[in-house]
C-alpha cells in the first residue's frame, strides 16, 4: 500500500506546515478565519496536484539545467488559472485572500514537492503526493484558522459558537496572534512526536 502512504504522509508525519515549516506566509496570513483557510488550502491543493501531475509527465523532457525555471513556469501557470477562476466565480474569497493567491507561486511547498517528488516519481504517485500534501496544508490552515477564529471572533465559519458574554480576544486574528498560535501548535507537534 505504498500509494496510501504517499497520500497520507502529508497529513501528520510530513505535514508541510507543522513539521517542515514551509509556506509560512500564506499559512499565517490567511488563517484568520476558517473560510479563508479552506479557500487558500484548496487553491494550493489544486496547484499542487496539477503541477505535480504535469511535472511528473514532462520530467524526462526537461534538461536539468533549466528544470527550475521550467517548473516555475508550470506552477505559475496553474496559479494564474486558479487566480482567474476564483476571481470570476468566487469573488468574495478571492478578495480576502488577495495578494496571497499569486504568491502561491513562491510557496516553497509547491516547488519543493515538484523537485523532491514529482520530478522523480510516476504520475499516479505524484498526484497522490500533491493531493496529500495539499490536504495536509489545508488541514493545518483549518486547524490554525479555527483556533484563531474561535478565540479572536468567537465564531466558527462565521457562526457564533461561544456565549455572548465572551469578549473576543482580538489579537488572535491579528498578526501577533497568528505567530503565537503557530508557535504553540508547532511545539505541541514536537511534544506528541516525542512520545
Amino acid at each position, binding site marked *: 500500500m505504498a500509494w496510501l502512504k504517499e497520500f497520507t504522509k502529508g497529513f501528520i508525519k*510530513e505535514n508541510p506546515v507543522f*513539521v*517542515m*515549516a*514551509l509556506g509560512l506566509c500564506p499559512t499565517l496570513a490567511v488563517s484568520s478565519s476558517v473560510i479563508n483557510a479552506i479557500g487558500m488550502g484548496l487553491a494550493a491543493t489544486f496547484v499542487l496536484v496539477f503541477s505535480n501531475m504535469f511535472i511528473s509527465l514532462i520530467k524526462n523532457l526537461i534538461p*536539468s539545467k*533549466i528544470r*527550475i*525555471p521550467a517548473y516555475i*513556469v508550470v506552477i505559475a501557470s496553474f496559479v494564474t488559472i486558479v487566480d482567474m477562476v476564483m476571481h470570476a466565480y468566487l469573488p468574495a474569497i478571492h478578495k480576502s485572500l488577495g495578494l496571497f493567491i499569486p504568491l502561491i507561486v513562491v510557496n*516553497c511547498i509547491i*516547488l*519543493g*514537492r515538484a*523537485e*523532491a517528488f514529482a520530478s522523480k516519481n510516476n504520475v499516479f504517485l505524484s498526484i497522490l503526493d500533491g493531493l496529500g500534501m495539499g490536504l495536509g496544508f489545508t488541514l493545518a490552515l483549518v486547524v490554525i484558522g479555527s483556533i484563531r477564529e474561535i478565540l479572536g471572533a468567537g465564531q466558527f465559519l462565521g457562526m457564533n459558537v461561544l456565549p455572548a458574554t465572551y469578549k473576543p480576544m482580538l489579537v488572535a486574528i491579528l498578526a501577533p496572534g497568528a505567530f503565537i498560535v503557530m508557535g504553540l501548535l508547532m511545539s505541541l507537534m514536537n511534544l506528541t512526536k516525542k512520545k
Partner: protein
Amino acid sequence: MSILIHSILTLGILGLIYGLGLAFASKKFHVEVDPKIEKISGILPNVNCGACGFPGCAAYAEAVATKGAKINLCAPGGDDVTKKIAEIMGLEATSTDRKVAIIHCQSGGKNNTKFKYDYQGIETCKAAILLSGGPNACNYGCVYQYDCVRACKFDAMHIDDNGMIIVDNEKCTGCGACAIACPRNLIEIVSIKKRVHILCSSHDKGAIARKVCGNSTACIACGLCVKKCPVEAISMQNDLAVIDYDKCIVCGMCADVCPTSAIFDPLKEVRAQKKATAKAKAEAMKKKIEEQKSQEKKEEE
C-alpha cells in the same frame, strides 16, 4: 485573438531573452566549483527554503562538502536526500567493528568514593580538578561532576544510583566526545570486541592508590598481570598497568590474577567455569592415567 498572440509572443520572447541571457551569462561568468558541491546541489531539492539553517541549498551543499555540516538537515528532501548525500560523502556507518567508550576508573561512584574535601563549586569536572587537585582523595580518579555525561549527544551515558557512570554500549557511537570532555583523561574509545580493561588510572604507589580508592580496586602496580599475560599485552607504565589493545586477545588471565580486581573481564565467570570443568577433566584424566599406571605397575609386579 490578439490577446492570445500577444501573450504567446510576450512570454515566449521574455522566456527566450531570459534563457539566452542566462545561458550567455553562465558561460561568461563561469566559475569552477568543487564537483562534490555540484553533486550534492543536484540532489538537494533546490527550493532554497532555508530550513537547513543555511542560506539556500547551494550554501548547504557547500557546507556539507567542505565544512562537515550535518547531512540530515534538509526538511523538504527528507530521508532520501540524507541517504544520497551520505553516499556521496562516503559516510556509510560501519557497524562491524564498533568502538565504544570505556572509563578507566571504578572508584565506586559519587556516593562511595573517598573525598578529601567538600567541593562547593560549579558542576563541571574541569573546574573541580583545579581545586586542590580535585575533591576525591585519588588524584587520578573520576571526580563525578559528569562532564562526560553532558558531552554525550547520544544519551549513551547514564548515572546509576551510586553515582557511577555507565556507558550504554548499544547507544554509544564511539564519537569520543566524552573522552575529550574528561579532564582526567579517564575515557578511552576502544573496539567493542576488546572486553578486558584495567579500570584504574592511578599512578600512585600501591599503598596510597589502594588507600584513596573508594572501592579499593586500584591498580597497585604489583605486576602480576604483566607476568601472567600470555601475549605481553600489559605493561607497567609509571606504576599503572596498561593494556595494549592491539595485542590483547581477551583471554582474561590477567583479570584472574589481579589481587584488587582492578581488571575487568565480563566473561570471568564463564571462563572460570570452563576452566573448572577443564581442570576437572584434566584431573580425572590424570587420575585415570595414574590409575592405569599404577595398575600397569601392579601388573608388572
